[in-house]
């Protein structure tokens, strides 16, 4: 009974954190929704850990709890891979931005030099 309390409270705490982050606009909706969906599945399981025993039996896994643990790790790995992918895309975007910025700055410097030269020959 105690364990159910701990897992259930942890789930609710995480739910509160996600909702609060979303409310303060510190988490993009596309990520927030994912975590909310995960919690909607996990919280009932934390209250009734035997819920998946039948499914686990069908797959040859000893108990529902082990199945949840296994799926949880797989899910977290996938999330990490996805984040690396997102960061790679972000790095490419910032690289292009940095190049654009440098090109613009060079262009401004060249125009300024050309204008100064014009002024000095005129005056």
């Amino acid at each position, binding site marked *: 009974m105690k364990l159910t309390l701990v897992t259930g409270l942890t789930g609710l705490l995480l739910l509160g954190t996600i909702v609060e982050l979303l409310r303060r606009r510190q988490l993009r909706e596309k990520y927030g929704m994912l975590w909310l969906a995960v919690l909607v599945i996990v919280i009932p399981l934390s209250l009734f850990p035997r819920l998946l025993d039948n499914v686990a039996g069908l797959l040859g896994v000893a108990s529902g709890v082990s199945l949840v643990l296994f799926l949880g790790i797989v899910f977290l790995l996938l999330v990490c891979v996805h984040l690396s992918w997102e960061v790679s895309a972000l790095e490419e975007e910032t690289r292009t931005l940095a190049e654009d*910025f*440098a*090109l613009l700055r060079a262009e401004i410097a060249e125009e300024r030099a050309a204008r100064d030269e014009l002024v000095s020959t005129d005056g």
Partner: protein
Amino acid sequence: MVNGKRTLIIIPALNESGSIADVVGEVRGELPGVDVLVVDDGSTDRTAAVAAAAGAKVAQLPYNLGVGGAMRLGYRYARDHDYDVAIQIDADGQHDPRYVPKLVDLLDDNDLVIGARFAGEGDYNVRGPRRWAMVMLSAVLSRVARTKLTDTTSGFRAANRRVIEMFAGWYPAEYLGDTVETLVHTARRGYRIRQVPVAMRKRMAGTPSHSPAKAMVYLGRAFAVLTLALIRR
């Protein structure tokens, strides 16, 4: 202008304020009428200011992107300003600008020309894992490019318009991407690559790394980069 072609020399530089003025000055002295673009790769010293004072055009990146990152900027500049030829030269003074006309000559029949450190000339030598890496890269890349390439990591290169166009849109920023991966990519797309033997000078500033452990890591990374480049589209 080199042989009637509008030519841009691209020099990627990271904290090279000690030697950049000499390099820019030498290039401008040897090749009058050629534009020099120094790409300051997020230096923390006065590289950009020193290069500009020496008469180079300067493109200053807001933060460090690595040689590959700096080079794409150089090629974008060459494309946007309509240059016929873009030549990359290292900022440490290892590359002799007197070879530039020779490289440009060969662009008539080739798309990318590499200035390769001439075997036996000068006191340029490498041993151990670093040498194995160079031998492996040369063997594989020579096959891919269907021409003899002995110095695949040379940063002394001349590109014609077609290659400038390609590099402006695609140029890897990662380790060895600027040398090994660009060669694989260029050869795979049917561009003709040639190498020209050049004598390499000692660098004016900075020191090369010579630890065996580093050389071993280099071999591993070179192998990984090459494998990835070969299985990539």
